[in-house]
Each structure stands twice: as C-alpha cells, then as structure tokens.
C-alpha cells in the first residue's frame, strides 16, 4: 500500500513528523514500511518567467532564454524544448539543483552559456504512468498566476513523501486511510481529524434493490444528478498520483479518493441508461458480456452480478458493464456502495484475470459494511463540491445490522501470555488511544470491537493490541522455565548425520537437488517403489511436474552440469526422500565421475570405478553395524537398462533388494548426456530401522599369527568373495583374515581362467599354532577350494 503523507494528513495531523520517524513508528506497531519515496524529486525548483526566447545561433532546435526567477535575478538558460515561448511561467532548475538523474550545473551549450534548466514534468521524477506523451516531449507550462520565485514542487502540490507499507493480511482495514489514521493516532497519542459530512437537501430515492443471493450482505445506491465532468483540483490529482493512481477526471478521481479514504470501492452507473431503475443482485447469471473496458468476458454461474434492465450492469466488485457506464457526458449518476463475498469474487477475478484495485479491496476485506450509507453521503458531498452536483437523492440501501462484539480482557490475561507486568491503567490507555469503547469491570475491561476491526475475534487478538502498542521492545526477554528435557537426535537421525559426515570426509560433496522431476525421468533407476508417479495438479512446467522415485537421475544431472563447466571430477552424494503413490522412502545415492585421488608427479591416480563406490557402500554398511554376512551381492539382470549388466550388483538382504551399486547403462549415459558414471543407491529407510547388534569390544589375541600365501587357477567367473568364504570355512575358524592380493588373467593361464592369490592369516586365540596344525589347515583349505571351484593350486 502506497500512503501519501499529504493525504494522510487530511485524516490525522502529522505535519510535525518527519517521514523517517513516522515510518519507524508505523513499523514498530506492525505495519512494515518497506520503503520511503518522494512523489517528485528536485530541491530548489522555482517558478520562473521566460522573458525572452531567441533561437540558438548554432543550432536548429535549441533556444536561448532569459528567465526571471525572482524580482532581481534573470538567468540565461539554453532550452531544447519545442514548446518554449517568451511569456510562459515555467519550472526552473537552477545550478546545484539535484534532479532524479542529473545535477544541474552552469555550462556552455554550443558556445552559449546556460545557467540552469527549464523542466518538463517527466524530469521531476514523476512516475511515467502519470505523465502524458505531450508532457514528456516538452516543458511544463504553468498557470500565468503561478507566483514568481515560489517553490515549484510546492506550488504543484507535488512535494509529498510516500510510505510503501506492507500490510499484513489481517489488517486490510488499514487500506482505508480513515482506519489507518487510528493506528497513527494510537502511536502519536493524538486524535484523528474526523471527516465532516455536510448536510444536503435530498429528494426521495427512486431506485429499487432486489438481492437474490447471500453473497451480498449490504447494497446501497445513491442517485446524484446534474454533475459536470472536468479536471480535478491539483491537490486531488497529486494525492492520487502519490497513492499510485492515475488521475482521470473529477468523477473517477472522487471514486478513487473514496476508496483510499474508506476502503470501500464504489461503482457508478449512468442513471439515464437504466430504464426500470431496479438493481438485482444475483449469482446465477450466465452470458458473454461486453465490459466497460471494451472487452468481452464470460460470466458464469456463481459470479456475483448486478443486473439492470435484464442485462449485466456490473460484475460485482470487478468491473461494470458497457451498457450503463458513465462517460464524460453523463449528468445523472447512480452510485453503488456494497459488500460482496470475497472468496467468490476472488474466484471470478482470477478466472477473468481482472484483479483490479477495487476487487482487491473486496478480496482482502477492507470494507466496513456498517458504514456503507456514510460512504455514499461522503461521495455526494464531494460531487457537490468538485462536480457541481445539483440534486441529491436519499440513499436506498438494504438493511444491515452491525452487532458489535464484546470481549472481556483481564490484566492476568495480558501478563500471563506476554510475560510482562503491564498495569490495568496502561491497558486502558492503550484502548483509549486506539479509540475502542470499553467499560471497566473490576480488573477487567469489557471491550467493544469497532466495526472496522474484523481481525479481532478472541482475547489473544486483544492481547496483541496491547503488546504492539506497549512495544515489543518493552517485553522482557527470558528463557522458558520448565522441566529439564534431553536434547538428542533419534537413532535414525544420528545415523543419517554419521553417514553424511563420513562421506564428506572421504572427498564426496553433499548435494541437494530438486524433488520434482519430469515424467520421462521420474521412473529411471527406480528400485524401491512399486507405486505410481506422484503427479502435481498444476505444475509450473513439464520439467518439474512429478515427484522423483530415485535420486540417481538428479545426481546425473549434477554430473552433467559440472562437466559442462569443466569440473571434470565429480564425486557427490545426496540423502533425500523419494515418493510414489504408495510410500515415502529415504534413500542415499552416490555418483562418482572422473579422478578420485591423484598425485600425477608420482604416477598415483585412482579414478571413479565400481570398486570405489562399492568401498563406500561397504564402509557405510559396516558403520551401520550390518555385517557382510548379512548381505550379498547379486549381479543385476542381463536385460537391465539402467545399470551396466556386467558391472553392477544388487545388494540383497535375504530376498530384499536394499541397494544397488554399479556403472550406469550406456543407454542412460546417452539419455543424461554423461560418461563413465558409477553410482549407488541405498534404501536408507530400511537400513536405518534394521536391528543391529550393540558395540561390544572383543578380546585382542595374545598368541602370534602366521601368514601364508596361496594361489589358485580357476574359472574366470568364480566370485573371489566366495573363495574367501570357503577358505574361512575350511580353516575351521583359524583363518581370521583372508585378503585377495593378486588377480591375473593372460598368457600364463588358460583361456577363460584366472589366477587369484590370497594372503591367509591363521591364528588360534588359545595357543601358539604348531607347524603341524598350520600345514594341515593349509592342506584342508587347498583341498576344499580345489574341490568347490574346480581350481588348481598354483605352484
């Protein structure tokens, strides 16, 4: 909301307040002043008289003017405006004057001295909406009576500060300056200036009103005859401009002024264009209609409509119809002030894309329905004063009873909620300053809620009134006194944090990507969801229209984004929720691309590969206390099109797939425009809730361990992990650690074969192993492996 301080001063005396101070005070009671502007810019602008105007000797469009700016001084000014002439009163910016874009200096223009500038309205910084093309093209010519040497902005009524206020949605009443004045009055502790209603001679009203919908609680019409359409007085035009409204003519301007003053939009009909003088309000009107903006709109069932002569007179609160609109020639007008249902109106305005200033007032609820008749009288007053209205009819209005709400507020209520020690007398003073009526009942106030304060419905609302006027700065500050509670992450939360910390400590970057994806991608890499895609009803675009089921596509997009920016090594992870129509699953995904670790001058390099990502997964499972014996790796299906079938594995626990690790399929690499990306995705939701053993320290063996190396030649497709398990099994528990230290395929072994070598650590926790036991155990191991895998000991 744009508030002109000059206009606000009509309703409360604020002349002694600087804009900055007032803004701070207004903000402090809950109406945030988001900016302070001035209507026009330029100090030291004076009214001058062009005494002489001759052509510039060295230009075909410049003029050299002698401009008198006070009784004594005449300045020579070079002016380029086509409309400058001797004898004009003009706006003069003297050297030193700061305008919106320039500071005026004494200068030479094509060899002729110039001591200032003759200004157009546009150059004063007025919003371009308010300046006509003609005014932009030439200098502003003032009235001949303009006093020589006077402050030009002051003379034009353009010296005004504007507060840009962000009203909270509950205080739409403050869209009415009259109501806003109560707020300012409460902080300044002064009375408002009441708007005086002058008595008028009236004729009986001759219109009829029929309300056929419950979406119109009150509807009033006042007929005013004999008006003259003309230009508004300068103060009104300036006030409207300062409020962000373009002045049109006196009639339109008065209706806008009323809306600013009272928050009540009004509509005017040409009285003479209405034959049966009956206004019917209904919400079951359906047709294509021409509105006063010259466009056709579809009016549908549910829209609130004022029907006249069987036609649309006005789409309530939104826009009037073409057939009854007022024009410059209208003499007799019917003025409507009414209250319409906000939500219904919002739907209509939204549908037709006609969120007009007026409709916003209904939607936000700025209207004080109890004052409808008063508003119409005020319009009539203004039409008499500024539009020469000759005949005023009595208002015809539907009955409306306002029942004031009363609420009882005690000192304990206030201090109990705020934690303050505010006295009864201060509470009383606050409601006195807010101009609320109340009566005293012991230490309680029985408060009557004014009709414009629809936001106040319960005691807590009244306490807020006390708090904001008392000042939030004056509320003490202390921590709650309550029983001690333990602040602790849940087991699952702690595990998630541990995983994030671990991965970020092994050179992975955590990413946060968008949950919303496109229908063509949301099913890619999905492993854990059986349900349908979760689709938005009104997405912002196809790209973000469904909720993802896997995090891998998002990570691939991050890889692509980075590689495109020459960040060639991308090692990232994300922990987020994924969704299908059936469930929410938190997953962890990792993507690795490029060099992981490198020291090139020593020829050390490790790139992203299957084993790198598998290593992360194994460590995570280990940290989650899920022993390798509880899960197994199973190659993905041959026909899998998300993962490389030869280089990817499911991680299974029993029958359940709880994760996947591997290289993305070439088809996916193509689709996501990436190369050589190794990924994993784990069903964290399942892993975090799994039963796991508590941490118990084992006994460190006291007896020495023995190391033996053993190598076998066997078929290429035997899993090394299976061999290790066999070795452990055949050792009868003596092999406490078995590691693969060599894998070879090539000319020294047969086709389809490989040589694998293991380091076996044998240890007995109870005694030192003797040579005999060691040899026997190794023999058992060799026999078992040879038999199980059709392998041969490599000698």
């Amino acid at each position, binding site marked *: 909301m744009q508030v002109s301080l000059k206009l606000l001063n009509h309703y409360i005396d604020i002349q002694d307040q600087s804009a900055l101070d007032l803004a701070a005070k207004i903000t402090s009671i809950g109406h945030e002043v988001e900016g302070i502007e001035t209507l026009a810019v330029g100090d030291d602008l004076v009214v001058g008289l062009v005494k002489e105007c001759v052509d510039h000797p060295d230009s075909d469009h410049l003029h050299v003017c002698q401009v008198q700016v006070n009784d004594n001084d005449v300045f020579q000014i070079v002016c380029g405006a086509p409309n400058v002439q001797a004898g004009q009163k003009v706006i003069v910016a003297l050297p030193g004057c700061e305008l919106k874009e320039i500071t005026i200096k004494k200068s030479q223009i094509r060899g002729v001295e110039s001591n200032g500038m003759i200004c157009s309205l546009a150059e004063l910084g007025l919003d371009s909406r308010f300046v006509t093309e003609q005014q932009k093209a030439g200098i502003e010519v003032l009235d001949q009576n303009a006093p020589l040497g006077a402050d030009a902005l002051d003379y034009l009524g353009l010296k005004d500060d504007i507060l840009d206020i962000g009203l909270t949605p509950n205080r739409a009443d403050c869209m009415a300056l009259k109501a806003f004045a109560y707020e300012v009055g409460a902080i300044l502790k002064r009375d408002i200036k009441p708007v005086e209603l002058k008595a008028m001679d009236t004729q009986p009203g001759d219109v009829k009103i029929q309300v056929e919908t419950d979406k119109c609680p009150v509807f009033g019409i006042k007929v005013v005859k004999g008006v003259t359409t003309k230009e508004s007085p300068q103060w009104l035009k300036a006030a409207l401009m300062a409020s962000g409204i373009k002045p049109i003519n006196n009639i339109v301007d008065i209706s806008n002024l009323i809306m600013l003053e009272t928050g009540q939009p009004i509509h005017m009909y040409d009285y003479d264009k209405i034959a049966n003088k009956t206004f019917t309000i209904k919400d079951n009107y359906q047709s294509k209609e021409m509105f006063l903006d010259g466009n056709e709109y579809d009016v549908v069932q549910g829209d609130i409509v004022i029907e006249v002569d069987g036609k649309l007179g006005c789409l309530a609160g939104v826009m009037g119809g073409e057939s009854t609109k007022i024009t410059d020639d209208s003499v007799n007008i019917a003025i409507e002030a009414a209250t319409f249902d906000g939500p219904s109106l919002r739907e209509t305005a939204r549908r037709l894309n006609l969120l007009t200033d007026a409709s916003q007032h209904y939607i936000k609820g700025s209207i004080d329905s109890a004052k409808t008749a008063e508003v119409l009288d005020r319009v009539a007053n203004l039409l008499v004063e500024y539009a020469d209205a000759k005949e005023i009819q009595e208002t015809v209005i539907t009955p409306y009873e306002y029942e004031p709400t009363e609420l009882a507020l005690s000192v304990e209520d206030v201090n109990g*909620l*705020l934690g303050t020690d505010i006295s009864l007398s201060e509470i009383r003073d606050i409601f006195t300053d807010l101009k609320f009526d109340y009566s005293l009942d012991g230490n309680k106030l029985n408060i009557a809620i004014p009709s414009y304060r629809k936001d106040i419905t319960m005691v807590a609302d009244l306490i807020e009134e006390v708090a904001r006027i008392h000042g939030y700065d004056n509320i003490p500050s*202390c921590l709650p006194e309550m029983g001690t509670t333990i602040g*602790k992450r849940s087991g699952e939360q702690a595990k998630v944090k541990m995983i994030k910390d671990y991965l970020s400590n092994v050179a992975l*970057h955590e990413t*946060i990507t*968008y949950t919303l994806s496109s229908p063509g991608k949301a099913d890619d890499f999905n492993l854990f969801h059986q349900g349908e895609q979760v689709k938005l009803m009104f997405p*912002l675009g196809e790209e973000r229209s469904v909720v993802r089921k896997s995090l891998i596509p998002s990570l691939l997009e991050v890889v692509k984004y*980075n590689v495109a920016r020459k960040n060639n090594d991308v090692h*990232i992870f994300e922990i987020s929720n994924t969704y299908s129509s059936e469930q929410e699953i938190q997953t962890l995904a990792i993507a690795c691309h490029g060099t992981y670790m490198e020291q090139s001058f020593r020829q050390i390099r490790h790139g992203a590969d299957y084993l790198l990502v598998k290593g992360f997964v194994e460590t995570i499972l280990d940290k989650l206390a899920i022993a390798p014996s509880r899960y197994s790796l199973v190659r993905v299906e041959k026909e899998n099109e998300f993962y490389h079938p030869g280089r990817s594995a499911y991680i299974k626990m029993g029958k359940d797939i709880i994760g996947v690790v591997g290289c993305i399929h070439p088809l996916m690499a193509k689709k996501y425009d990436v190369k050589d990306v190794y990924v994993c995705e784990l069903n964290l939701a399942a892993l975090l809730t799994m039963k796991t053993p508590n941490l118990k320290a084992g006994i460190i063996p006291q007896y020495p361990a023995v190391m033996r190396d053993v190598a076998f030649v066997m078929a290429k497709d035997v899993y090394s992990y299976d061999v290790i398990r066999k070795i452990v099994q055949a050792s009868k528990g003596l092999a406490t650690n078995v590691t693969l230290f060599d894998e070879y395929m090539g000319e020294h072994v047969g086709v389809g074969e490989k040589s694998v070598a293991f380091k076996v650590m044998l240890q007995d926790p109870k005694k030192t192993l003797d040579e005999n036991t060691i040899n026997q155990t190794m023999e058992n191991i060799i026999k078992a492996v040879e038999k199980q895998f059709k392998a041969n000991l490599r000698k």
Partner: protein
Amino acid sequence: MDKLLEISKEALERIAQVADLKELNDLRVHYLGKKGPIQEAMKSMKDMGQEERIAFGKVSNEVKQNVSQAIEDAKAKLERIVMEEKLASESIDITLPGFKVASGSLHPLTHVVNTLEEIFLGMGYQIAQGPEVETDYYNFELMNLPQGHPARDMQDTFYIDVNYLLRTHTSPVQARTMLKANGQGPIKVICPGKTYRRDDDDATHSHQFMQCEGIVVDKNITMANLKGTLELFVKELFGEKRAIRLRPSYFPFTEPSVEVDVSCSNCGGVGCSMCKQTGWIEILGAGMVNPKVLKMSGFDPEVYQGFAFGIGIERVAMLKYGIDNIRDFYNNDIRFLAQFAREDK
C-alpha cells in the same frame, strides 16, 4: 718401552688422519691384531725381570686402550659423517604437494541446519520430522488456514489432488508433534526440512526451499520466553554483535505474531542496498501459538500456552555466507560446494 710409546704415537697420528671406515678397520686390524706391532713389542716381555715386566705390561695395556679408544672415537665420527652425507642425499623438496584425498563437503544448507540443531539440542529440544507429501488437513486446516483462505490458493501451492500437496511450510510437523503428544506437555521440538511453493525460480525465489520450525508448549510459556529464545539463537547464529528487532506481524497460526529482524551485517545497521536502506534484515517469523491451533491439535488452550517460530534456511545461509543467488544452492556446482569443506567458526 720406548718402542711401545713410539708405536702408540704413530698409531694415534695415523688414526687421526683416517678418512673412511674401511681404512680405519685396516688400522684396527694392524695395530690391535695378533700380529700387530704392539703384540710384537710385547713379545720382548718374556725376557724381562718381574718389575720391568709389570711396568711394561701396564704401559702396553694403556697403549692398547688408547689406540682402541681412538679407533672407537674415529669410528663414531666417521659414521656420523656417513650418516650426515646420507641425510643430505635424502633431502627432498619439502614444498611438494602433500598426498591427500581431496576434501569433500556438507551442503551449505546442511551446515546451517546442523548449527541450528546443535543450538537447540543443547537447550533440550528434540528434532521432529514429517512427510513432504502432506495432507491439506495438516498443512492448512490445522494451521488455522481454513478453506477459502487466500494462502491456500492453488496458484501458490503444489497440489497433488484435493487432499494431498507438497507441504508449503514445516508447520504441519508442529501439528503432527502436538497430536502425537495427546494433549500432554511439555513439547520442545524443532523441525527442519524441505518445503515447496509454486514460485518460478529466480535469484531470490525457489520452488523448493528449506525451513526450520520450532515449537514449545507448556503450562506457562510466555512471549517473554519466545523473545529470550529468539535472542539467544539469533546471536548464536549470526554473532554476539548483531542486534535483533521484533516487529508485530501476522500469521494465522500464531497470535500475537512477530517478525524478527537482525541488524544488517553489510552496513552495520546504517542502511545499504542489501537491507533496502532500513539497516535491518528480516530473518524469521514467530509468535504465540494461536489458541485455535492448540485446540485443533488436542491441547487445552485454557491450560497450555506455547510459542512457535519458523526460519528460512536459505535466507540464513545467504546472509551468513554472502550468497546472493538462491539457485546456487540447487545447481550444486562443485566449485561452490567445495567452499563448504570447512565449517564456519
């Protein structure tokens, strides 16, 4: 006897001039060996009288000892020289790059959430979480945003169907937590998480963003408690020197409501473009839980009072780290992320 002393003198002179360990060893074998000159000289002892022999023996022992000691000393000295030569030859360029796995990082939004969590865990809060695909009932209805409320506009919310939507704030977790507590206080939780609004993405808007909600409900919770809590954590988050300002505001789920501003770090409060010349930057909204919200969530507003606050994580991160484009958080450029390999403070 003179012979012995002569041998000794010669030996000591030669030992002193020895340049390497091999030569020294040769001298040792020569002088102290069975066929060496000392041993040779001692052969004459058998022709000596007892007294002379004792004297000779004493001198010869001394000579042997002296030579042997001189050899040991020379050896130590030579070994030291050899070691030093070896050390010198082993010298490397100590400024070569260290061998390390590059640093990874937590996302800046995670850093902010972690900081908030630590602050509130320290004050005895729990961390609550809720679904991002939420019902209209929890997201709006229980937050005192009934049907027809402008904040429920289809234009601003990602609806999935009439009942389901992507949550527009973390407030529904408040309601879920309260309902779970079954009308029994105290409640003391924060709820960080992802939220969604139907906004076009630009430098200051993001259709996906993060919030952290906090709620405390007990029998005597006051607005002064809210103020104390906010002051504490804002200073903890932004630094002791920052001032905070509370402004009355409006949220349907709190009454009274406040908007909290922190003094601008860029200009120190005198006004600049970052704070729109006001000297203050809005960072969070809060208030006393609306009695209607308490009631709908199963708490008796005659018995219980509470406060709640909600803070935008991106906004905090932008202020804290000087980030001016919200999209940076979601582009995940490695160069951007890598800056957060270390923690602030």
